[in-house]
């Protein structure tokens, strides 16, 4: 069977972690559980994607004017979007971990 055409994120998992020590979902879940937010790896992934959705939504609206939920979901899952977010979010968060207004 031939490989499906298109980007991998459209057909399966294609994940991006930061170069400076980003974690996998299982480790994130373990760390979050230790910190009092009990969860498993799937929940960690769902929360991460929900957060990505929140970031993708205004970006899609800015570029596509009328962005539907499907398009936002697609953008949020796209590893290229996630890579660009790593750079941007790292820049936005200042050294104290607060949002740099």
């Amino acid at each position, binding site marked *: 069977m031939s490989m499906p055409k298109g980007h991998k994120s459209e057909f399966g998992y294609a994940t991006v*972690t*930061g*170069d*400076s*020590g*980003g*974690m996998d979902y299982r*480790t*994130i879940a*373990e*760390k*979050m559980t*230790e*910190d009092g*937010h009990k969860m498993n790896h799937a929940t*960690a992934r769902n*929360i*991460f994607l*929900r*957060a990505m959705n*929140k*970031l993708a*939504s*205004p*970006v899609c609206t*800015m570029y596509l004017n009328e962005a539907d939920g499907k398009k936002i979901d697609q953008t949020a899952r796209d590893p290229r979007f996630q890579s660009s*977010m*790593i750079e*941007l*979010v*790292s*820049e*936005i*968060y200042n*050294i*104290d*971990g607060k*949002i*740099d*207004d």
Partner: protein
Amino acid sequence: MSDTLKLFFKDVGRHNLLTRDEEVMLSQRIEKGDKLARERMINSNIRLAISIAKKYQHRGCSLEDLIQESSIGLMKAVDRFDWRRGFKFSTYACWWIKQAVRRHVASHSTSIRLPAHAKGLLWKMRQYATDYEEEFGIAPTPEELAELLCVNLKTLNAIISSAATPISIDARVGYRGSSGPSEGRTIGEMIPDPRPDPGDELDREKIASVVRGALHTLTEREEKIIRLRFGISEDPSDHAQLPITSSELKRLQRLTVARGVK
């Protein structure tokens, strides 16, 4: 080829080459101050001067100038030739001719004038590089060349960079349209600007402001997970808060202890 040069070549063909005995006889007369003998000696060997000059064509000097310089070299050789040594005149003259032509090419082919010894060094360097490549199949490194030429690497690098042909930033390149050489881009237009594109910068600023707004809407859990996923630590200097799990921390501690014991 210009008309003058054509006429000159035609005229050169009229003079016959000299035999060894004629060369000796003419040299003896030249020694006694015979100007006609000198002229004949020069005219008979001018073909040698032309053939050497032709080898230095396409190096930034016109053929007329090269022939003129090689003729000056030939005259010098005629004046200094010593027939008693028993060599043919051409054997002696070709070095004087080559020297005159090389000196001219060295001082006129580029906008930056290099001293004759530097040009000579470059000449040698290219020769060595070609020989080295033929023998070993790879180009020699600058260090190897410096060692072969018995010069300082810094000096060699300075000479190589000075010998580079300078070009005008306003020179036009590429396709020449029907309207002539004024079409096409200048070299200056093709040099990339290292500064970011103002349009891209503006886009980036817009996205950053939108994302900054969106980050305010994240819950504590979401923000924390994004940080862990992207590897954005809250305080990189705080090692107690490193984004690793306690089990991983225990494993690292065990490993450290084990290494310490060994």
